[in-house]
Each structure stands twice: as structure tokens, then as C-alpha cells.
């Protein structure tokens, strides 16, 4: 059954097609059943293929299934072909696993929405596109999936299109991604130019056999990384992700936390041999990741919207993954991607459960004391928060520690310090969120209080399952110091991602790095407990003390305004000027002029058609005289 892996993306694709055509006429129960079963089938197939992969010798990898030759022009060719190897297996399992739980959760969350079948059709389409992205065996097909998930992201952010903010957020996401994708497309073109093909096997071979100069590799990697910055919301193209929270919460969990936004990390890991050729590009990746991780975390410190805090946290965590990739620890980046997919989608879904209970209230200042009313949501949210904060024995701790220790071991203490700083802030803002939303006094508006209830089982069961994974996923890749053969995740990925050259850390150093990570988490949590539990007056005093800094953070460094002033407005003004002076005058003038010219000629010729017999006869006579005159003279 392993050979059937190429069906994994096609099942949700087929389901999307059926829902697209017949969706509005089908009963709701049918729609939800079909959408969920399609993803479940993909999940089962992924599991089977994964188990098959465990028994396949590394020499036989990757499995490639070519469905048909798609483009073949001159030297350029691209096949519709799927690819299955350990890296793909990890991604398909994450996408279908988390995706399936979110589909189930959506059945409850979207139960009363008018666009029910449209929602599930799009969710299936997204799953299809994302699986296409991770299973494509060449860059061209990957780009198709890459654009497909971008399209779904746009459609689902703007799902409630009657809301102007949602429509605008969808457009913003789409346009910002266009900028990144332009770089990505150029990267693919250069890849073709220098390598002669876009098949991953050809790229890896060229990278291994030295068929690529370092300059060419740097150029390609940087261009592709621009695309990754757009899709994975890194500086400078991160601005669309916080706004993307206008979409339904399960969408935020699936697309804007667990899967799509990590596509950049997957892409870099997929091309790890190419990236390893270019130390300069890797440095850029690591630097962007580190700066983003810290920068986004600072903004999360003061936000009041529960979903936006999580959005900034996502940006920051993806920064962590890029630190991992940038220091050459691609597997650690992928590990964090996997654990992050679990705990971040858990956090989003739990936040969705809160929103569901409070009739859509998102401001944490108007929550408080929800622990009593939503015990299950609270418990699962707390587990997610503990995991992301890096509390020992939960998944986030192990994956974050894997990245940080590799960064330190790879000789990048500055990156390590930046990561640690971001980790402290992560722990702080997560527990600020937990304490403000679930503890303390109730500050609910009467409107929100009316329907206060725990969510139905169809929503809470996915939460519980994700909570289990948020705890357990970390045990797939324990640090070597805890035991020799416990880093299963990393050894599973070895056929794709070779372990770094640097030898294992001395156990003393590794223990101290682990202790540093624990201390970072503890410091952040302790600070939050003091600020929002014991001494609730401190935050106010701090705001009073540093009003400028607070305003800067609250307004997200005024980045939207700066982009607006520096890029958007000049572009708008420029376009308007061109419209006024070139379009209206030159182009319209030429078009209207042609019409007017025809009119004038017509009006002149019109006067000849008097309709009177005499005039025509006169014309005949004049013609006769002219001909006769010409003959006689």
C-alpha cells in the first residue's frame, strides 16, 4: 500500500471538487462528513506510507511517482510527480493529522455559519494544495502548491467578506505574499539556469558534485528565501499575519499557525544541500530568524487581542525555526515545526473555544476568571502555553532546546542569546495571556456573559488530542545527553538532512544549555506571575514609566504606518499620477481621437449622400465630363 502515497493529496482535492460543485445543495451533515473523511483517508494513507518508509532501505529513497509530463519546452521540463521521503512523511503527517483535527473542530465551530459548505470546500482545497506543496518532486510543482495555499489563505482570511476588515486583511496577505513570490519565482528561474532542472534530485546532485558556484547558490538561496519570508511571515514581510486573524479561528490554527506559514521552513530544509553551499545565505536566514523571533515577541508582550498575541507568537516561533535552519540544524528546525504545529494549533483552537463561549469577544482585558466556566479549554490552553513557553518535559522545551543548543554548538553565541531572550519573552507573554484571560476577576461584558458555556465535545476532543501531542511530540527527539538512541526524529530525517559536522557537545555543556533554557522559561513565567498575579500594579507603573516604549510596542513599531508612508502611499500616488496623466490623456486620448476622426470623416462623406436624385445625376455628369475631358486632352 505504500505505493499509493501519490493519492494522499488527491483525495482532499477530489472532495473539494465535489463540495465546490454540489456543496450548497448537500445537507450539512454530508458536507462535514465528506470533508473530514477525505482528510482522514489522507491521514491513514500517510501513516501507511510512513510505516512503509520505515522498512525501506535509505538507498531506495526518495520514492518518486510521476503521473505525467506536465511541461516540456526545449530544455525545460516539469512533471506532475510526487515524492515521498522522510521529510515529506513528517510534513504529510503534520498536515493531515493536525488538519483532520481542525476539520473536526470546525464542524462545531462553524455549525451556524451560512457559508458552511464553502468553508469546508476551501479547507479541503487548502489541504490539497499544502500536500501538493510538500509532496512535489520539483520546484515548479512546489510553486503550484505554494500559490495554492496562498490563494486558500486569501479566501479563508476573507471568509467573512461582508466585514471590510476581513476583506482588507485577505488582500493584504495576498499582496504581501506576491512580493515574496516574485523573489521565489526568480529563484526558480535561476535554479533552472544554473542547475538545468528543478527536480529536487537534480538540485541535490548538483549541490553535492560541485556543479554550482558559491555565488550562484547564494543568489538562488536568497531569492528563494525572499519567498519564504513572505509565506512564513518573517521580517520584512511579516505584516500580513497579524491581520490574517480576521479569518475564522480554525483557519488561523490550520493555515496561519500549523502548516502554511511553516512552508518556508520546509522549503529551506528540502533544499538543505543547496543552502549548505552558501554560508552567506545561511547567515541571512539565521539573522532574519533571530531578529524576527525577538522583534515579534516584543510586540506580543503588550497586545490585548487574544488571537493577535498568538499571531505574533507564531511569527516569533517561525523565527526560531529559521535560526535552526540558518545554523545548519535543519532537522532541529523541522522538529520545532512539528511540535509547534501541535501546540500552536492547540492554542488557537482553545482560543477559538473561548471566542465561541464569549460570543466573539477577543479582548483579554474583557475576559478574566474563565477558568471556572471553561475548565477543559483552560486545561488544554494551559498545556499549550506550558509547551510553547519551554517548560521541561513538554514538546516545546525539547524542540526549542534542540535549536538553541545547535546554535551554540555551531559557534553562534549571539544567535543563541537572541533565541534565549525570545524564549523568556515567549514564556512571559503566554502566561500574561493565561493569567489575564483565565485567572483573576471576571471582567466580562454582559453581552459576552449571556452564552457563557464550555464548547461541545466535537470541539473539545480535538483539543484534548492536540494537548496529548503537545506534551508527547517532544519525546520523538530527545537530546543525546539523555540517552543514546532517543533522537529518533533526527535519525529518521537523516536520509534527507545530514547531521551537522560538529561533533556531539560535551555532556557538561549540553546540560548547562538545557539549564539555561529552563531558566529562561522559568524567568518568563515567574515575571508574568508577579506582574499579573501578585503585583498587578507593576504593569501600569511600567507603562507610566516608559510611555514611549509602551506606545511603540502597542502600535507594533508603527510598521504598518511606516510601510504605508514609504511604500504603499508613494505607489498609490504614483499610480494616480500615471492614471491622470498617461492613462487619461495619452491612452484615452488616442482611443477617443481615433473614434472622433472616424466621426469627422463620416460627417464629411455624409453630406454627399443627400438622397436627391439630381445630386447623384450631377455627380454622374461631372464624372462624364472629367473622363471625356481627359480623353480629349
Amino acid at each position, binding site marked *: 500500500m505504500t505505493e499509493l502515497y501519490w493519492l494522499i493529496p488527491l483525495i482532499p482535492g477530489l472532495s473539494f471538487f465535489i463540495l465546490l460543485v454540489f456543496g450548497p445543495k448537500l445537507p450539512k451533515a454530508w458536507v462535514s462528513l465528506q470533508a473530514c473523511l477525505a482528510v482522514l483517508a489522507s491521514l491513514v494513507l500517510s501513516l501507511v506510507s510512513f510505516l512503509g518508509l520505515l522498512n525501506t532501505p535509505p538507498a531506495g529513497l526518495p520514492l518518486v511517482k510521476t503521473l505525467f509530463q506536465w511541461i516540456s519546452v526545449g530544455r525545460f521540463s516539469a512533471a506532475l510527480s510526487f515524492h515521498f521521503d522522510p521529510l515529506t512523511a513528517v510534513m504529510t503527517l503534520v498536515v493531515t493529522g493536525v488538519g483532520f483535527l481542525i476539520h473536526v473542530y470546525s464542524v462545531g465551530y462553524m455549525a451556524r455559519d451560512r457559508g458552511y459548505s464553502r468553508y469546508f470546500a476551501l479547507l479541503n482545497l487548502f489541504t490539497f494544495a499544502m500536500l501538493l506543496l510538500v509532496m512535489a518532486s520539483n520546484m515548479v510543482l512546489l510553486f503550484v502548491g505554494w500559490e495554492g495555499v496562498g490563494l486558500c489563505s486569501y479566501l479563508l482570511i476573507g471568509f467573512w467578506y461582508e466585514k471590510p476588515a476581513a476583506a482588507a486583511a485577505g488582500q493584504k496577505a495576498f499582496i504581501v505574499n506576491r512580493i515574496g513570490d516574485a523573489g521565489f519565482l526568480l529563484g526558480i528561474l535561476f535554479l533552472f539556469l544554473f542547475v538545468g532542472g528543478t527536480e529536487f534530485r537534480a538540485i541535490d546532485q548538483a549541490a553535492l558534485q560541485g556543479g554550482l558556484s558559491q555565488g550562484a547558490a547564494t543568489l538562488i538561496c536568497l531569492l528563494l528565501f525572499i519567498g519564504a519570508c513572505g509565506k512564513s511571515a518573517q521580517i520584512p514581510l511579516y505584516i500580513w499575519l497579524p491581520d490574517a486573524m480576521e479569518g475564522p479561528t480554525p483557519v488561523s490554527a490550520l493555515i496561519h499557525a500549523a502548516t502554511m506559514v511553516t512552508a518556508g521552513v520546509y522549503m529551506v530544509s528540502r533544499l538543505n544541500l543547496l543552502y549548505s553551499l552558501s554560508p552567506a545565505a545561511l547567515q541571512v536566514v539565521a539573522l532574519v530568524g533571530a531578529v524576527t523571533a525577538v522583534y515579534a515577541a516584543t510586540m506580543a508582550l503588550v497586545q490585548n487581542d487574544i488571537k493577535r498575541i498568538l499571531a505574533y507568537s507564531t511569527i516569533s516561533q517561525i523565527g526560531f525555526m529559521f535560526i535552526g535552519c540558518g545554523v545548519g540544524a535543519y532537522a532541529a528546525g523541522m522538529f520545532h515545526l512539528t511540535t509547534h504545529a501541535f501546540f500552536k494549533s492547540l492554542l488557537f483552537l482553545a482560543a477559538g473555544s473561548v471566542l465561541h463561549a464569549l460570543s466573539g469577544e477577543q479582548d483579554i482585558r474583557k475576559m478574566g476568571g474563565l477558568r471556572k466556566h471553561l475548565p477543559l479549554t483552560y486545561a488544554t490552553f494551559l498545556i499549550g502555553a506550558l509547551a510553547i513557553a519551554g517548560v521541561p518535559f513538554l514538546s516545546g522545551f525539547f524542540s526549542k532546546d534542540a535549536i538553541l543548543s545547535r546554535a551554540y554548538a555551531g559557534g553562534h553565541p549571539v544567535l543563541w542569546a537572541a533565541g534565549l531572550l525570545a524564549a523568556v519573552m515567549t514564556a512571559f507573554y503566554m502566561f500574561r495571556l493565561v493569567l489575564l484571560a483565565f485567572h483573576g476577576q471576571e471582567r466580562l461584558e454582559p453581552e459576552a456573559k449571556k452564552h457563557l458555556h464550555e464548547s461541545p465535545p466535537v470541539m473539545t476532543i480535538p483539543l484534548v488530542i492536540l494537548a496529548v501531542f503537545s506534551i508527547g511530540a517532544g519525546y520523538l527527539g530527545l537530546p543525546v545527553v539523555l540517552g543514546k538512541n532517543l533522537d529518533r526524529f533526527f535519525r529518521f530525517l537523516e536520509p534527507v538532512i545530514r547531521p551537522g559536522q560538529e561533533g556531539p557537545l560535551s555532556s557538561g555543556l549540553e546540560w548547562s544549555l538545557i539549564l539555561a533554557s529552563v531558566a529562561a522559561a522559568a524567568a518568563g513565567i515567574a515575571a508574568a506571575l508577579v506582574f499579573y498575579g501578585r503585583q498587578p500594579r507593576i504593569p501600569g507603573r511600567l507603562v507610566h514609566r516608559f510611555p514611549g516604549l509602551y506606545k511603540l510596542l502597542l502600535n507594533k513599531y508603527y510598521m504598518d504606518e511606516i510601510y504605508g508612508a514609504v511604500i504603499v502611499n508613494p505607489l498609490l500616488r504614483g499610480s494616480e499620477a500615471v492614471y491622470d496623466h498617461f492613462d487619461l490623456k495619452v491612452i484615452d486620448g488616442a482611443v477617443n481621437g481615433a473614434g472622433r476622426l472616424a466621426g469627422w470623416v463620416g460627417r464629411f462623406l455624409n453630406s454627399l449622400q443627400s438622397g*436627391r*436624385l439630381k445630386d447623384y445625376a*450631377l455627380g454622374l455628369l461631372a464624372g462624364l465630363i472629367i473622363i471625356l475631358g481627359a480623353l480629349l486632352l
Partner: protein
Amino acid sequence: MIPLSWFLALSAALFVLGVAAFFVKRDLITMFLAVEVMLNAANLAFLTFAKKQGLLAGQVIVFFIITVAAAEAAVGLAIILLVFRQRKSIKTDEVDLMKG
């Protein structure tokens, strides 16, 4: 023997008369008659030259012209009749529907 030039002069005079009448008169019947006069002026010229050259071709063409003129008269008169029925007038000034 009357010189040929007299015939030609008569033919020319008839043709000019026809043209003049065609332009001066305003009712279709008279204009139609003017056209007939012009046709017959042409006939006379043909016959004159046929006589001078001693060729039959000129006389044959005259037969054709007479035949065509008869057919034309039939069609033309029918059209004039219909115009009159429609518009109660055969003045050309009043029939200018084809104005562009």
C-alpha cells in the same frame, strides 16, 4: 445627300437637350422621358457611324439599346407608379429618404 456631320450635330443637340431636361425638370415622368431622348441621341450617333463605316455592328447595338430601353421603361414606369402610390407625388425633391 445630307452630310454626316448634320446627323451628328442633331444627335449631340438631342443629347444635350436630354441632359438639360433631366436636370431642369423635377417630376420623374419628364426626367424619364429625358433619359429616353438621350438614349435615342446615342442611337442616332451609332447609326450615323455604322452608315459611314459600312459595318453592321452599330445597327445591332442600336437594336440592343431599343430592347433595353423597352425593358427599362417597363421597370421604370412601375417604380414611378409605386412611388406615386406611396407618396402621392412624383417630385424628386420630395423623395429623399436615402439621405445619409
